[in-house]
């Protein structure tokens, strides 16, 4: 059982956590300090300098098809991509958890309606919905975030509702209720802490997912203003230069990969930590 012991020690220093945080901090810090890394901003363009390979004329990552410095655009693009990822998840999380709590706790009409909406959304391909909605309301950063939140809150609502249904039957909750605690107190003090784990895991995965979605939507032409740099937009716009100017798409692609990997690893780590079954198992071995 020596192997198992060493692997347990390794689990403490956890690979997922360390590697995930490392990757994430690279992208987070570069986005936060974008104006330090690229103090001149990201929109300086010079058509004479278009598609310069990395290293030429001081463009460390080269220039894109409009002659903009890719190194300057990546940290600024990170601000947008991470905003898309975080805000869309935050909105759908708050809405979804709220509705899930209410539906699971009070059941009734709200619950029935919620479940039907969830069925509808699950049976409808996201991309088609996004195309339809954006065709109607027009594109833009906040509209994009709105579409993502519109389609994703259901995931949280369903997950939370399921857990609330089982939690409300538990002895501890029943006992608190018998002691006359208010509904709000029961929900906020006793339920929320117990169900937040899986929600956080889902959220980390969705942040990564939504950064990719933004890229897919730009590919279909539904993305944001091309003057505003975003990793997804840079990647989609670089696709025709894959064979002649690899750097245009490679660097934003790397930025996405690093971030998405980081979020996913962190999500894995959180899942391992928060899953009660997993902790039980750790004890057993």
């Amino acid at each position, binding site marked *: 059982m020596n192997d198992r012991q060493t692997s347990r020690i390794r689990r403490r220093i956890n690979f997922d956590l360390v590697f995930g945080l490392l990757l994430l901090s690279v992208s987070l810090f570069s986005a936060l300090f974008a104006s330090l890394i690229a103090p001149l901003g990201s929109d300086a363009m010079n058509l004479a300098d278009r598609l310069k390979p990395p290293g030429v004329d001081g463009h460390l990552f080269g220039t894109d098809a409009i002659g903009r410095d890719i190194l300057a655009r990546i940290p600024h693009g990170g601000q947008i991509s991470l905003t898309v990822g975080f805000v869309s998840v935050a909105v759908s999380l708050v809405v979804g958890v709220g509705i899930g709590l209410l539906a699971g706790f009070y059941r009734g009409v709200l619950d029935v309606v919620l479940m039907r909406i969830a069925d509808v959304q699950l049976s409808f391909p996201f991309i*088609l919905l996004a195309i339809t909605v954006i065709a109607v309301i027009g594109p833009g950063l906040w509209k994009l975030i709105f579409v993502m939140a519109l389609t994703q809150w259901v995931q949280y609502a369903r997950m939370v509702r399921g857990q609330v249904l089982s939690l409300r039957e538990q002895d501890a909750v029943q006992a608190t209720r018998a002691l006359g605690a208010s509904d709000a107190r029961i929900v906020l003090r006793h339920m929320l802490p117990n169900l937040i784990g899986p929600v956080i895991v889902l959220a980390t995965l969705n942040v990564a997912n939504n950064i990719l979605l933004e890229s897919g939507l730009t590919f279909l032409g539904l993305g944001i203003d091309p003057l505003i740099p975003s990793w997804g937009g840079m990647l989609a716009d670089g696709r025709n230069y894959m064979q002649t100017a690899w750097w245009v798409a490679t660097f934003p692609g790397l930025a996405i990969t690093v971030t998405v990997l980081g979020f996913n690893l962190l999500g894995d780590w959180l899942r391992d930590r928060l899953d009660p079954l997993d902790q039980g198992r750790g004890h057993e071995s």
Partner: protein
Amino acid sequence: MLVVTLLVAFAVRLSGDPVVALFQGASAPNKTDLERIRKALGVDRPFLVQYTEFATGLLTGNLGHSFRNGQPVSELIREKIPGTLVLAASSLFISIALSVPLAISSAVRKGSWVDRLVRLFSLIGLSFPNFWLALMLILIFGVGLRWLPPSGFEDWRSVIMPATTLGLILTATNVRLLRAALLEVLSTQYITVARSKGLPQRVVLYKHALRNAAIPAVTFIGLQFGGLIGGVVIVEQVFAWPGLGSLALNAISQRDYPVLQGTVAVLALVVVAVNLLIDFSYGLIDPRINVS
């Protein structure tokens, strides 16, 4: 299903115009021509009249006719179903073929470097946008090596790249789900008993552990099927694959309402059917479920 189509039918009518779409490529439509075709297509009537006609048609299996070429919508959909099913089935197959062995080797050696490498590898599908993965595959296997046709639906070789693109995305989640489920099962008393009976590792893994672990993964596939079809839209676009995704995409840009409504209804039906099938498959995967 009716709700889904009602929503779509309503939303898609909020902007754009099917008749102007027919004039695409022409200099300019004038008002009399627009009116004439609107009338011929029946889009001059109130929304509820149009939708009721569609809904009653849906119940009798008549989905109406395409604005674009007058063909019955049901026939258009029937033409596309093989492409979509072949793609969905083969991407599921690829993802299972990859994720089962990967998940097992990683679960058995949890915490080892194998485990880490497997999980990192399985994340590849989640780290690139699908159109990007698709174009990379085309450049490597279609252009560079010339092993596979870059696009179209000609024979079995055409299926490999689009199915791999979708399959890798599924693999990423499947490996992780299966691994987690396997770890859970492997630690149960049931397996410990099986092991202590002296059953070989292989039998324990494949016959007992895997069956139990498959259930959450299969459920998840059902939940993600709508999303999978969504991914199909982009993958079909890149690989010029004739399927329901491209049919729906074209129908949106043409505002071909009957085709869009019909396709969405069928897609919703497929998702419901797949989830039903999955419910049935529990019995096959784990015979105990029949008993209980």
